[in-house]
């Protein structure tokens, strides 16, 4: 049987195609398998009693009344967990880093409101929560630190008695002579920038189901995690269980965005209890717990200044960053990940010869900060791009023009940024150009002038960024960490039924990897996309993997998938050469068939598999001894990682009476390398920008002076609805591909990286006649009201 004439087997068939997602039918039909859906016979339910003190000694814990309640099976305290689990902390080889032990249930001290103190296990969640009220807890209050500038003072009370101070990490970056640069400047601009605390708010809150098989002594944790491999490896140490006896499975997960990339106390407690009781246990976070305990992000104070020459060239940048990282250093990333990224990515895609930056990560009595979409980069871009706009205003230059003059040009790659990061190559200038064209920049400036004359507050925003994605072993995602984020594994196997399975250590939270990775593997093997089954999120399926974070899915999954599929393809071709009696060079695959070029001699890959596996003698022994089977496992290390970049532009209008900001146009032009599935790539941009808009305009985690979380419901922590998000134009620039296997760049975090800066710049542009610069976000109507009142008073 010959393949149809219209299939050109030399041109990509699936890469770049808008393939409809394979995950959709079950998710649309309500047949998804999320952790909260999992039921096991005899399953018990956990509810946590949490601290309502931000900093206190625990002076009394009495669980007897809770234990006695009908329907309660057991109650666990910090002392119990100490007995059942080894202690752990997030270590780092970074200089000046102080690790903190994280007790899964607080033992002698609580350090943030929401910290878990007691776990009640009962026949239902309803009963478990009833019993929480019967747990007696007494505290002795300690001084509460919610201001990181207070917490870093030498005489500040220490959150962790075994540490020298509350400064969990400190780092400096320097290049050139920054003081000279400022002395020579035609203009300087800057001030204190404040990017406030955010929380990811996945619609599916975190959940765990832990079950322990007494016979095989195997612990299985079903968990809403992005990092099953990291969790498995650490739980193995915490419970002294070797790999085969501890399995972590991330089934369908309802969003992650980084909030599910940390190891959480509840996961450890669930495992400890399952093992101790020998019963399956389930914990599902409610929204209040989620808003109080899921890793926060973006709490950074940046004092920064820029110096520019008359022609707009950046002469120097300096920054002093204080990161408020909450009460403990989160596992695995450590408290360093976000604050250090702020300064290492601050120079951005710009040519900067002189740079000096310092960062300190400071512990406070608040929720731990972890990784949230973009990590430190949204802050880096906010500061850098605000500085550029402020400088541009001072010298009377257009914001797009000042960027044109400072963006690294194509002929300057590879470019070593001022912080030491290397941009291999990316279309910085082309993205800016196409964003300006796409939004009709010059026409918008004319419209803005007319609107201004009418008393309307219309603003245009620009932001350009660069990031490293798919970062290999050369650079750790969080510096000095003891886990390996630089490789990922793929096993491609064609089994004796002829079915193709590709297994990865990655995990999915909605990015469509069951489809995109199937596209990649199908392309490489020459089978149909719908005939490739993708296995993700299960530590039993690969010997090592970490998970999905840092925009690594396409690069690592795509790369490892191609390598493994190529290896299997070679085997197919060899066997086919024998079975079809042709030279290996004359064999090609496509549509699930193998055939001899230029003839109609062919067979299905399925039949080939049967011939190899099940028809004894059809394939000679010496060939089978060499190839073994139609399976290959490959580990991909991109080593350096690759630069992804984008330009964002927007048009906004501020209501001059209510100070509400309306976003009227928004465009993202990104260089994300070879796009596997444009539907999915665009969807990532839409979603990221939407979260960026939330961060820019309305999202803020607020603690009061005593450390109480004031934003503990979705009424108070405000995320955008369909009305607040405009249509977003997404353009992919076809630029030179990176050197990664497959030519993929990472994408996914770009929206949150660029949008806050773009919108803050647009609002500053709209309010520039009043001399207002946005230094703090979210730019809520309240904040704008204050700024305008202050400006009018002057």
């Amino acid at each position, binding site marked *: 049987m010959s393949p149809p004439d219209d299939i050109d087997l030399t041109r990509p068939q699936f890469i770049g195609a808008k393939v*409809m997602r394979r995950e959709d039918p079950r998710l649309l039909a*309500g047949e998804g398998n999320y952790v909260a859906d999992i039921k096991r016979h005899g399953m018990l339910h956990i509810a946590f009693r949490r601290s309502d003190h931000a900093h206190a000694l625990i002076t009394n814990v009495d669980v007897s009344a809770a234990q006695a309640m009908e329907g309660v099976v057991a109650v666990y305290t910090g002392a119990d967990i100490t007995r059942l689990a080894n202690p752990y902390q997030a270590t780092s080889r970074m200089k000046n880093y102080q690790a903190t032990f994280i007790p899964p249930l607080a033992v002698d001290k609580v350090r943030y409101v929401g910290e878990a103190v007691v776990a009640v296990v009962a026949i239902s969640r309803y009963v478990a929560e009833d019993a929480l009220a019967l747990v007696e807890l007494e505290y002795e209050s300690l001084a509460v630190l919610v201001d990181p500038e207070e917490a870093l003072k030498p005489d500040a009370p220490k959150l962790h008695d075994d540490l020298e101070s509350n400064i969990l990490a400190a780092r400096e970056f320097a290049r050139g002579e920054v003081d000279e640069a400022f002395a020579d400047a035609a203009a300087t601009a800057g001030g204190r920038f404040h990017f406030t605390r955010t929380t990811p708010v*996945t619609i599916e809150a975190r959940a765990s189901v832990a079950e322990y098989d007494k016979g095989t002594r195997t612990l299985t944790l079903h968990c809403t995690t992005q990092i099953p491999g990291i969790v498995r490896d650490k739980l193995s140490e915490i419970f002294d269980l070797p790999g085969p006896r501890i399995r972590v499975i991330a089934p369908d997960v309802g969003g992650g965005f980084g909030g599910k990339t940390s190891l959480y106390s509840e996961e450890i407690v669930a495992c400890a209890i399952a093992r101790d009781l020998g019963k399956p246990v389930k914990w599902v976070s409610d929204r209040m717990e989620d808003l109080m305990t899921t890793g926060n992000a973006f709490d950074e104070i940046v004092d920064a200044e820029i110096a520019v020459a008359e022609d707009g060239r950046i002469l120097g940048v300096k920054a002093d960053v204080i990161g408020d990282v909450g009460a403990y250093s989160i596992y695995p990333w450590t408290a360093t990940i976000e604050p250090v990224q702020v300064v290492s990515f601050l120079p951005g895609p710009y040519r900067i010869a002189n740079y000096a930056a310092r960062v300190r990560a400071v512990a406070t009595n608040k929720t731990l900060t972890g990784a949230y979409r973009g990590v430190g980069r949204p802050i880096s871009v906010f500061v850098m791009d605000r500085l550029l706009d402020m400088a541009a205003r001072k010298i009377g230059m257009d914001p797009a023009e000042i960027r044109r003059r400072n963006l690294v040009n194509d002929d300057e790659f590879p470019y070593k940024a001022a912080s030491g990061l290397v941009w291999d190559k990316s279309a910085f200038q082309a993205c800016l150009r196409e964003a300006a064209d796409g939004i009709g920049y010059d026409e918008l400036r004319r419209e803005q002038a007319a609107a201004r004359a009418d008393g309307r507050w219309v603003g245009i925003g620009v932001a350009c960024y660069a990031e490293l994605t798919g970062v290999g072993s050369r650079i750790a995602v969080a510096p000095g960490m003891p886990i390996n984020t630089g490789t990922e594994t793929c096993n491609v196997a064609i089994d004796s039924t002829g079915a193709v399975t590709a297994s990865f250590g990655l995990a999915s939270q909605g990015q469509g990897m069951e489809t995109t990775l199937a596209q990649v593997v199908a392309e490489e093997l020459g089978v149909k996309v719908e005939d490739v089954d993708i296995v993700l999120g299960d530590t039993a399926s690969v010997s090592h993997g970490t998970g999905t974070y840092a925009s690594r899915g396409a690069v690592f999954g795509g790369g490892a998938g191609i390598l493994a599929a190529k290896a299997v393809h070679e085997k197919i071709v060899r066997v086919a050469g024998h079975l079809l009696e042709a030279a290996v060079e004359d064999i090609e695959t496509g549509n699930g068939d193998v055939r001899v070029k230029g003839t109609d001699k062919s067979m299905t890959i399925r039949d080939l598999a049967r011939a190899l596996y099940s028809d004894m003698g059809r394939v000679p022994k010496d060939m089978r001894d060499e190839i073994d089977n139609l399976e290959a496992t490959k580990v991909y290390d991109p080593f350096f990682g690759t630069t992804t970049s984008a330009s964002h532009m927007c048009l906004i209008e501020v209501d001059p009476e209510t100070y509400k900001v309306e976003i009227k146009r928004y465009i993202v032009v990104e260089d994300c390398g070879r796009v596997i599935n444009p539907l999915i790539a665009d969807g990532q941009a839409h979603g990221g920008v939407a979260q960026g808009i939330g961060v820019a305009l309305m999202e803020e985690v607020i603690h009061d002076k005593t450390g109480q979380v004031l934003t503990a*419901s979705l009424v108070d922590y405000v995320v955008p609805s369909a009305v607040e998000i405009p249509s977003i134009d997404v353009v992919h620039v076809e630029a030179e591909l990176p050197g990664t296997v497959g030519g993929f760049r990472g994408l996914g975090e770009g929206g949150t990286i660029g949008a806050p800066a773009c919108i803050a710049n647009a609002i500053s542009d709209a309010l520039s006649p009043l001399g207002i610069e946005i230094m703090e976000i979210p730019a809520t109507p309240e904040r704008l009201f204050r700024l305008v009142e202050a400006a009018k008073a002057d």
Partner: protein
Amino acid sequence: MTAKISITVTVNGTAQAADVEPRLLLADFLRENLDLTGTHVGCEHGICGACTVLMNGDSVRSCLTFAVQADGAEVETVESLGSIDELGPLQQAFREKHALQCGFCTPGMLMTATDMLRKYPLETDDDIRDGLSGNICRCTGYQNIVAAVRSAADKRDGK
């Protein structure tokens, strides 16, 4: 514990009899008692919309309704819109427009959209956004969901 109450709720066309505590939420009744886990719980305070089902034809928050209040009522969940092998037209529109990523808000979106399509003309996309404003999504940025509902509205109107 409070005495249980006997209820009969018709769910997706099938009468379901059960004895339930008065405080059992309809969302939990569907998910735990009936194993219909397509309806998701996202906040338990009526803001996120993930738990939306139809009760006597109207979209309601199943996290704000007690199971006992559904006694004698007809409840429809996402499972009634179609099956994995045969998605309903609205589900098909969502698939074609890539209107879901993680899928967790999706059942609520589908039920809300079903009610919206019956009750409102939805002349403009702003009308669609308004109607969807009670369903929060964190993955998609809403754009493709609006496109999917627009496509379904066009079909409804014979366009």
